């Protein structure tokens, strides 16, 4: 159950893992120089498992998701690591091979439902083309599948709504359409990149439970990207906390939440309202997330960390305790964690 490629146990269990990301590295080259957006990211995911990918804006969550989809484009480039999906290294696939996989075996949902559907094409067009991109079926059959998929995500009168245009739907409904499209081929893996961030809280909850229900029904593995730790609590099996392009803490959700090791995770938890008992003031982490073009040397969190010392000028190695891992020179000890 340990996700880190450096751990020999992972090699052993790779036959059972659906997704095994090892030492992934993505760089962007712009006129401000070359920056490493994600650096040495590793995790695994089994069939039907849910991974929460958490971190502030700019920490590299989307880039991680896009790498898995093979959608990193100029000026970005995957320049290290492996993405083993069912034993195949996605980073080595040709464009055409990747195209066949996208939408078929790995699907992705994006943040802003107002922007993800093409405004000038009917919903039916956008769904049918997805069916027919991978399966050689008749128009009638493709349309039937599209309609059923709409029904499944809870869109009333799907047959009628199929021929509507995106702007005739509300934001929540559009996100349901996007989810229906992602589910069309019952993929092995869905990457959901902050799909509820742009929605109202009530709709957020509905969508969340809908996705949870459908993915567990189909046995679909799910990577849920969010900046909100509280969402991950009830949803994910494992959680990976990202900071400055690295996974700084990784482990089973319950454990990470109960006893965080990394100082950044602790900060995140303290800024979640529900966790602050006894009328504590909400504590936001002060300072800014670093830019990939001016990463602090050593631990990326150092400029904002009140526990930083000279040791932190070196990049902290990955420390693993059972299935809980972190990258911090001065981790919160179990005792300290219980106390806070």
């Amino acid at each position, binding site marked *: 159950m340990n996700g880190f490629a450096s751990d020999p146990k992972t090699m052993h269990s790779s036959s059972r893992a659906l997704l095994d990301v090892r030492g992934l590295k993505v760089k962007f080259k712009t006129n401000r120089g070359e920056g490493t957006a994600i650096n040495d990211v590793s995790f695994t995911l089994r069939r039907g498992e849910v991974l929460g990918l958490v971190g502030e804006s700019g920490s590299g969550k989307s880039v991680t998701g896009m790498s898995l989809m093979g959608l990193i484009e100029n000026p970005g480039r995957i320049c290290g690591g492996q993405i083993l999906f069912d034993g195949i290294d996605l980073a080595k696939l040709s464009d055409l091979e990747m195209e066949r996989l996208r939408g078929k075996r790995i699907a992705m949902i994006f943040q802003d439902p107002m922007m993800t559907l093409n405004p000038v094409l009917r919903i039916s067009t956008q769904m049918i083309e997805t069916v027919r*991109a991978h399966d050689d079926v008749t128009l009638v059959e493709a349309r039937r599948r599209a309609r059923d998929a709409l029904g499944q995500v809870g869109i009333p009168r799907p047959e009628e709504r199929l021929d509507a245009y995106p702007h005739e739907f509300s934001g929540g409904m559009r996100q349901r359409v996007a989810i229906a499209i992602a589910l069309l081929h019952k993929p092995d893996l869905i990457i959901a990149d902050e799909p509820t961030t742009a929605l109202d809280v009530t709709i957020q909850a509905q969508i969340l439970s809908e996705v949870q229900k459908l993915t567990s029904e189909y046995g679909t593995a799910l990577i849920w990207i969010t900046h909100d730790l509280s969402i991950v609590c009830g949803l994910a099996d494992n959680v990976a906390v990202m900071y400055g392009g690295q996974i700084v803490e990784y482990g089973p959700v319950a454990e990470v939440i109960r006893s965080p090791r990394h100082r950044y995770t602790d900060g995140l938890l303290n800024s979640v309202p529900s966790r602050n008992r006894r009328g504590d003031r909400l504590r936001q982490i002060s300072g800014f997330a670093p830019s990939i073009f001016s990463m602090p040397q050593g631990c990326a969190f150092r400029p904002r960390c009140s526990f930083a010392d000279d040791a932190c000028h070196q990049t902290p190695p990955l420390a693993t305790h059972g299935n809980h891992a972190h990258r911090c020179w001065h981790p919160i000890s179990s005792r300290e964690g219980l106390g806070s």
Partner: protein
Amino acid sequence: MTTWLAQRLVQSVFVVLVMTAIVFVGVNVIGDPVSILISPDANQQERARIVAEFGLDQPLWSQYLSFLKGTLQGNFGNSFVYGMPALQVILSRMPATMELAIAAILLSVLIGVPLGLYAGLRPHSFFAKFMMAGSILGFSVPLFWLALILIMFFSVYLGWLPASGRGQTVDFLGIGWSFFTWDGLSHLCLPVLTLSIFKISLIMRMVRAGVREVLPQEYIKFARAKGLSRQRLLYVHVLKNIMIPVVTIIGLEFGSLIAFSVVTESIFSWPGMGKLIIDSINVLDRPMIVAYLMIIVFIFVTINLIVDILYTTLDPRVRLSRD
């Protein structure tokens, strides 16, 4: 949608009415109506007869009404030069002009859209930058000057293409067309190329800007995430979004092509309505001028109406807001 269409139609009719009033004022108040209606070499008797016939002794408003009536009946008087109803003369020249305009639009789209797509997809390539710089030249060069240079190069220096006339035409639907013979096509080349350079630059820039705007959109990423092929992405998702402004521009530019036929037809001696009107202005064949004006008004109002309808049908957001 029907209500919108009805409103739009009424609006068009109103514009035509306003234009008849403007033309009437231009002819009768600014110009001298007698000289407009009567050939300068008519004698005194004829003069008096025509003044009475056209009611030039009547008050202005009643004159306007009869002008309006004439316009509705397509009666603008006889051409001094051709001795035939002015409208008839102009209409007989219209197909030649239309042929030129249609050929130029086709060429501009066929060249401009692919160039724009390429420049939009590979904005940093040498070719794209070269074409963008070239398009500034394409915007700047005056039409008549371009025509002269093309004649100088292709007709005088190389001797490849004819510089004047329409060549052999073939009758189709009772009208002669140059499209269908080699000779006709070779005569079409230079005038069409002249008219197209500006439009190619324009369409290319628009398509390029459109591609640059659409490509980073989230819906393109999502479409890629669905596993669509690059062709489908480009020809359906990108192009459908770009086509809305492009179709609008094509419609409006079609009108300007008809306007600029005045220049190209004069230079290439193309027997269309543009050359006709310049000849008519030069000999002050005023009934022809008035008839031409009214036809142009009609053509432009129609084009604007069609463009509006197309725009409305193409963009679902606009269509629904007009329901």
